[in-house]
């Protein structure tokens, strides 16, 4: 291997962070003294940056196609033109529907329990496959929908990541083990607080409130639900609407 080739090889390793400290320092010194070498490093760095940009552009393009496909699958809203002709008949139907809805609301209000409210609203958090992310046995099991394996794996984790905590808690909640889910959600909130991070912050608030409902602690769930309801920018604001809150408040009054 000639000098040029050796230098190029070293420069690539330097760029990839694969040199030990001694090699790193020696090469850095050489780069400072040799402008041709510095220029070579510049070109290699540019090639690397180009690849990152290319990869990102391709990834955005793929997600764009996915999102547009989802958008096309949304059900179409019927336009009201034809309905106008049938108005008197429609009004009679509408009145009947209103009565049925009214009865349904009254039934929902008086028959509701915190557990029922949970059942009506809980849907396990949906994680999407993301290439290149740090996958663990637990996150892979969750993505595969194997909640039992997640529940088995979680207690063995010494230092769970925020994602593992969040998905672990969701798996317990999915399995109706509300107390365990609450403990993990609270641990995740503490983890975020200690590290000044915001992983799954709003998701955790929502699911923690649902866990309290399932655990027959509506009085603890209520302040969280009120917070989400009052914060229009909260990701789950639309889910915790006034009707949800009215029903939740009823349990507190019981």
């Amino acid at each position, binding site marked *: 291997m000639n000098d040029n080739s050796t230098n*190029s*090889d070293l420069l*690539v390793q330097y760029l*990839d962070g694969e040199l030990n400290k001694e090699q790193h320092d020696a090469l850095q010194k050489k780069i400072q003294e040799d402008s041709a070498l510095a220029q*070579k490093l*510049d*070109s*290699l760095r*540019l*090639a*690397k*940056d*180009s*690849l*990152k*940009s*290319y*990869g*990102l*552009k*391709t*990834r*955005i*393009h793929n*997600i*764009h196609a*996915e*999102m*547009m496909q*989802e958008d096309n699958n949304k059900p179409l809203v019927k336009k009201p033109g034809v309905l106008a002709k049938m108005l008197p008949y429609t009004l009679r139907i509408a009145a009947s529907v209103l009565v049925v809805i009214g009865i349904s609301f009254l039934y929902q209000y008086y028959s509701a329990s915190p557990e029922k409210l949970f059942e009506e609203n809980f*849907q396990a*958090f*949906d*994680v*999407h*496959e*993301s*290439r*290149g*992310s*740090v996958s663990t046995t637990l996150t892979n099991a969750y993505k595969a929908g194997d909640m039992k394996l997640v529940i088995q794996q979680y207690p063995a984790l010494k230092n769970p990541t925020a994602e593992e905590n969040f998905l672990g808690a969701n798996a317990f909640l999915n399995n109706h083990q509300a107390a365990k889910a609450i403990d993990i959600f609270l641990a995740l909130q503490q983890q975020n607080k200690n590290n000044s*991070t*915001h*992983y*799954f*912050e*709003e*998701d955790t608030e929502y699911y923690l409130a649902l866990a309290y409902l399932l655990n027959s602690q509506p009085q603890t769930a209520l302040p969280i639900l009120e917070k989400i309801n009052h914060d229009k920018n909260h*990701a*789950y604001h639309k889910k915790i609407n006034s009707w949800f809150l009215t029903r939740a408040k009823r349990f507190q009054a019981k």
Partner: protein
Amino acid sequence: MKIRRTFTDAALLEILRSDESPDDAIRFLYITQFDITTRYVNQNSGNDEDAQDIFQELVLVFIELVKKNKFRGESSVSTFLYALTRNIWLNELKKRNRAKLRDEKFDKQQPGTDMDVSHFIMHREMKTVLMRMVDNLGEPCKKILLAFYFDNLAMKDILLATAYDNEQVVRNKKYKCLKQLEQLIAGKPELAKNLKSVLSYE
């Protein structure tokens, strides 16, 4: 209905700066910002197709700026994206030789309160040349280089996704491919100079 991962501004910036996959963050940007861009483009001489192109460029520029620490949350993400949208779309209109009219219209609509982010906008033509260069490397090279430099995969994982005999063969191939790209770029000094400024957002 699918529940997607959501982010606060701080969490969004955090994940985009990290080596974690940006996929969920990109989907979140689509859910929260795409309609805003579409409305803006449609109200300013564009159509839905233009909006789709502009939005893809917007997301690309935004993520690269965050990664280069050029945006640290001085304004809300939404405000910053809106300013970027305007600039990207204005550039596009200029390119279509309708600049003068639109400039006047924009200036009247937004009287100096907007953020100046025009210096962040890269040249689309330059990017196109770059894309073509990477494409010219061929599929095997592209696959290995992107797996290593974009997806941050380890050699042993790249080996599993390719038909090579062992990690050393993959490593040698990666080295040759990177050199090939480097030589393509270095062979065009003027382009290299421009690319450097485009990719560093200086």
